[in-house]
């Protein structure tokens, strides 16, 4: 199989990740409950993962690194902590449903900062227009549909000037771009553990600047006589048993990233993505949404007959795994003008090889659309 759906999940992981998961299944009990060796072993491992994550994102303390089930869970906590019903919230025109749906459920008045695809200056201007009067802002770092790298630092600076708390969705950037969380001055940064961080599914991280409101209430293994959730992080946001095996795998994923460096991993991805985009551009029946410098990890395209799903199926029959449709981001398609067809998306990881890209292109070149 040629796997080109890393924007959904990174299927290939470092070998240490699955070894760690298997080991944790056998040896780790539940942290923060008992005090016997298997529980303390689990607690130590979880502690190390928090520390590694804190270091990766330039944070002083691991206390504000929260484990979640995925980025969606993390974004929900962030939205529920910051947004109140009726609040005006500025969002980019490329947000995922993991941002839009909680905002709608929360009763937010959503204002979209809309700009053409890959137009960074246009995006900055758009945010400048919608931020005044906003009670919060949410911005994705990289579009999951188009790989468009938004001007996050500039948007964060605008939010700071306007006094608007910013929530960052780093789902497509964590692990392949350096994210200086304290430097952004955002209140929250949400990410999955199972994409760029190379951990297993069922893991995610929420980086918090201050405190937050729990989404889930229950046992924390601490201050049990309180009927309400403890005030201190991370306990306040981590009710119930952690996905210990997942965290064990995530720890190895983060260690791999720190050993290699996000720059080196990003370069590996960029080589493959550039090769892919250059090859796709030569296929006459494909409309490819590409821009070399502002694109990270993913490229979207539409065949001339507009049937992305049929093309995806054809590719799957030939062993190429891609995704077609709206990618849970109808807003992105509305902004880019692709809502009626959706797109077919190919996305790479640091483990994608140039050989697999060439193979994909040669299979596609044989199609007559």
């Amino acid at each position, binding site marked *: 199989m040629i796997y080109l759906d890393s924007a959904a999940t990174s299927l290939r992981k470092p070998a240490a990740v699955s070894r760690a998961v298997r080991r944790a299944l056998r040896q780790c009990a539940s942290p*923060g409950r008992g*005090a016997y060796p298997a529980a303390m072993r689990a607690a130590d491992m979880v502690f190390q993962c*928090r520390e590694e994550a804190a270091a990766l994102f330039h944070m002083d303390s691991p206390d504000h690194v929260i484990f979640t089930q995925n980025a969606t869970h993390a974004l929900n906590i962030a939205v529920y902590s910051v947004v109140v019903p009726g609040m005006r919230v500025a969002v980019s025109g490329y947000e995922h449903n993991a941002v839009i749906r909680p905002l709608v459920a929360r009763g937010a008045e959503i204002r979209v900062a809309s700009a053409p695809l890959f137009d960074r200056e246009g995006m900055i201007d758009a945010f400048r227009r919608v931020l005044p009067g906003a009670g919060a802002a949410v911005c994705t770092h990289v579009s999951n549909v188009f790989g468009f790298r938004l001007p996050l630092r500039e948007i964060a600076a605008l939010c700071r000037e306007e006094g608007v708390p910013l929530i960052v969705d780093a789902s497509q950037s964590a692990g392949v771009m350096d994210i200086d969380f304290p430097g952004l001055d955002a209140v929250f940064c949400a990410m999955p553990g199972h994409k760029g961080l190379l951990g297993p599914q069922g893991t995610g991280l929420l980086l918090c600047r201050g405190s937050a409101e729990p989404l889930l209430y229950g046992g924390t293994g601490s201050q049990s*006589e309180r009927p309400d959730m*403890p005030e201190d992080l991370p306990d306040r946001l981590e009710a119930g048993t952690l996905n210990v095996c997942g965290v064990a795998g995530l720890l190895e994923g983060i260690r791999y990233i720190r050993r290699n460096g996000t720059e080196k991993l990003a370069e590996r991805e960029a080589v493959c993505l550039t090769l892919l985009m250059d090859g796709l551009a030569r296929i006459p029946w494909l409309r490819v949404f590409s821009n070399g410098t502002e694109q990270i990890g993913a490229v979207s395209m539409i065949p001339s007959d507009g049937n992305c799903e049929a093309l995806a199926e054809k590719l799957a029959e030939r062993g190429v795994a891609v995704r077609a449709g709206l990618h849970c981001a109808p807003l992105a398609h509305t902004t880019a003008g692709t809502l009626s067809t959706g797109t077919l998306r190919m996305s790479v990881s640091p483990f994608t090889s140039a050989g697999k890209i060439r193979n994909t292109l040669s299979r596609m070149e044989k199609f007559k659309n």
Partner: protein
Amino acid sequence: MSVYILFPTLLQAQGGNKLLSESGIPAQVVKAPRQMGDKGCAYGVRMSERWLDRSLRVLDAGPIRYGRIFVPEGDGFREAGT
């Protein structure tokens, strides 16, 4: 004899233990005896009584908040400072 320094969360107990260990103080993260936690389950670090003063100096110089301290008394413990 052992003393206990309690922390608000397990994570802070682990952070405190790491600070102490880096300062050459042998300590261990433990679940605190039930009677020590005023809000229920609590975690702390346990160490020999002779390390207590130095431990508090290390912790006071660092970013980790600690809570109540328990020292031996008779067959049990009393909260230090009471």
